[in-house]
């Protein structure tokens, strides 16, 4: 079949191009612009080449923040994914209670980040917070503003509280899509509970779990508001994750050049990881579809 050639059709793409340009490309380019220039004030900039990138790559501060970030994401994934699956497996399959569970589980997801931070900030306070006060009264030495471990534990519990529901709801959706015949066949085959999970439920959930892991990874990797409100990145720099550090650098110290280089590298890391996830997911899909 001959294709009709009509160059005017390009005009149809124009609105999208414009939108994307204004919403993404141009803002990103200003960051690129800052990342290759230096200034001594008075709004005078001069060319700095790739020196900011070089600086950042050799900066302990950035590597430490990246290390903390990786550790944080790894820990919350290691907790939220198994916990979410466990919750989904134990939710009622149908009836009023299943709707009730779904609503209750969705609640944390609807609370604004800020508010979550504030809730836990107060909840954990030793003087007036229910959690902090109770722990203190029990004789447990707990203080998230002073102790690094306490701060980490609190931030992690807060994230688990806020986001496990998401994993659970996705896993639940995956489980509900398994036809009854699979469970019946498994009974006939005398499969153990573990075998049912391993060979029926887990493979059927694989798709939604990949999405859950991707979402939770990206979100935790970019986390800012909740730990910022809760600990402000402290004590010291103990809970200063990448975003918090970036904001400190860009707005606190007004080091625009290094901050711009930092953000671009941050962006590249996220892109690279997303690409890996995307590739894995599409290969899985292809394997399924074959």
């Amino acid at each position, binding site marked *: 079949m001959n294709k009709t050639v009509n160059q005017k059709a390009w005009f149809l793409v124009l609105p999208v191009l414009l939108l994307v340009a204004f919403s993404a490309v141009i803002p990103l380019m200003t960051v690129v612009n800052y990342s290759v220039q230096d200034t001594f004030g008075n709004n005078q900039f001069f060319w700095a080449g790739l020196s900011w990138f070089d600086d950042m790559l050799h900066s302990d501060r950035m590597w430490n923040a990246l290390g903390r970030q990786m550790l944080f994401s790894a820990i919350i994934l290691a907790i939220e994914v198994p916990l979410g699956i466990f919750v989904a497996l134990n939710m009622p399959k149908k009836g009023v209670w299943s709707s009730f569970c779904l609503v209750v589980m969705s609640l944390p997801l609807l609370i604004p980040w800020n508010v979550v931070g504030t809730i836990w900030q107060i909840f954990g306070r030793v003087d007036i917070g229910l959690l902090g006060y109770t722990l203190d009264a029990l004789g447990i030495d707990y203080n998230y503003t002073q102790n690094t471990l306490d701060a980490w534990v609190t931030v992690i519990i807060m994230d688990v509280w806020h986001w496990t529901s998401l994993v659970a709801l996705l896993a639940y959706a995956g489980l509900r899509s398994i036809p009854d015949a699979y469970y019946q*066949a498994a*009974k006939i085959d005398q499969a153990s509970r573990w075998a049912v999970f391993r060979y029926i439920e887990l493979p059927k959930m694989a798709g939604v779990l990949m999405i859950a892991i991707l979402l939770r990874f990206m979100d935790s990797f970019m986390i800012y508001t909740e730990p910022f409100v809760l600990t402000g990145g402290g004590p010291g720099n103990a809970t200063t994750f990448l975003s918090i550090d970036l904001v400190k650098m860009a707005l606190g110290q007004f080091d625009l050049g290094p901050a711009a280089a930092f953000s671009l590298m941050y962006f590249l890391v996220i892109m690279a990881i997303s690409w890996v996830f995307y590739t894995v997911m599409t290969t899985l899909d292809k394997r399924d579809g074959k």
Partner: protein
Amino acid sequence: MAKITLDNLAHSYLPNPQSEEEFALKELNHDWVDGEAYALLGASGCGKSTLLNIISGLLIPSQGRVLFDGRDVTTSPTAERNIAQVFQFPVVYDTMSVRENLAFPLKNRGMDAAEIKRRVQKVAAMIDMEAQLDHKARGLTADAKQKISLGRGMVREDVNALLFDEPLTVIDPHMKWELRTQLKKLHQDFGHTMIYVTHDQTEALTFADKVVVMYDGRVVQIGTPQELFERPAHTFVGYFIGSPGMNLFDAEVDGSSARVGDTVIPLDGHFITAGHTQLGVRPEFVRLTSGEEGIPASIKRVEDVGRHKIIRLDVAGREVNAVAAEGEAIAADATRIVFAPEGINVYADDWRIAPRGTSA
């Protein structure tokens, strides 16, 4: 292997069934003789799968008992009953290879590796999948998957019964015939009790020694294919089995003759009836005539289906079918139909009436 007894069995999916209508499976007493092949035949939604799931233990009946060789297993879990069941839609374990799939039910029962290997090989040959044994089950076609499901049922040689819930629905016609032959062979080799649910009469009649016909949650007739054909116990059996199904005529029966419209038809025996009376005559026993006797009918069309011809007739506004042999000429001036007396069954309120002095 075992004799399976259903004692006063009934099931409703509602917690407190009030009327008989609310029972998906109406009260039923039946012995499934050890080693026979049964087909459970009926239209969709008539309770076939419910009955099957009760036997396999996936469903606990609302009333009655299920006995295996006299042992009450009504509330026993599936595992204790040692039953194999194959479902309508293929169930395979995606992440396993074909070989692992077939070995799975044996492995779960802790059988030793050499024996598992032997049986898997044997079953793979039966379902013609030896070449694909090491493929992943994911990505196979629907009929390959269903063959694996069948294979998982057949791999266990010591089962009490093999249950099939419309297993060949998704398989293409050629393979259907072959698998059915394999199942029959399996039955002959091992003598398992087999219950085969289907809504396809050809499948039922070719597979089974005995066919159980269900209608609206009730077993209406259990018999050999020949019995079902010659003496349908219920008008549904007459209509459902046979192609085309049995013709029914409203009639007044008086002793040994019946009146359909203005025509008096002699009957083969003496009948006493009450209620809504009908004559059932299979198309094979309807003959066209140009004489003065018989019920007036006009030919609408003739369909040649190969081995015989189906004649579609109009009798007082209702469609009636007749079957003529391939070579048989159809008289153009035929205006009446007559019935072979041995082919007439009498029904009162849909149930067959036996002539007096006989039992069946």
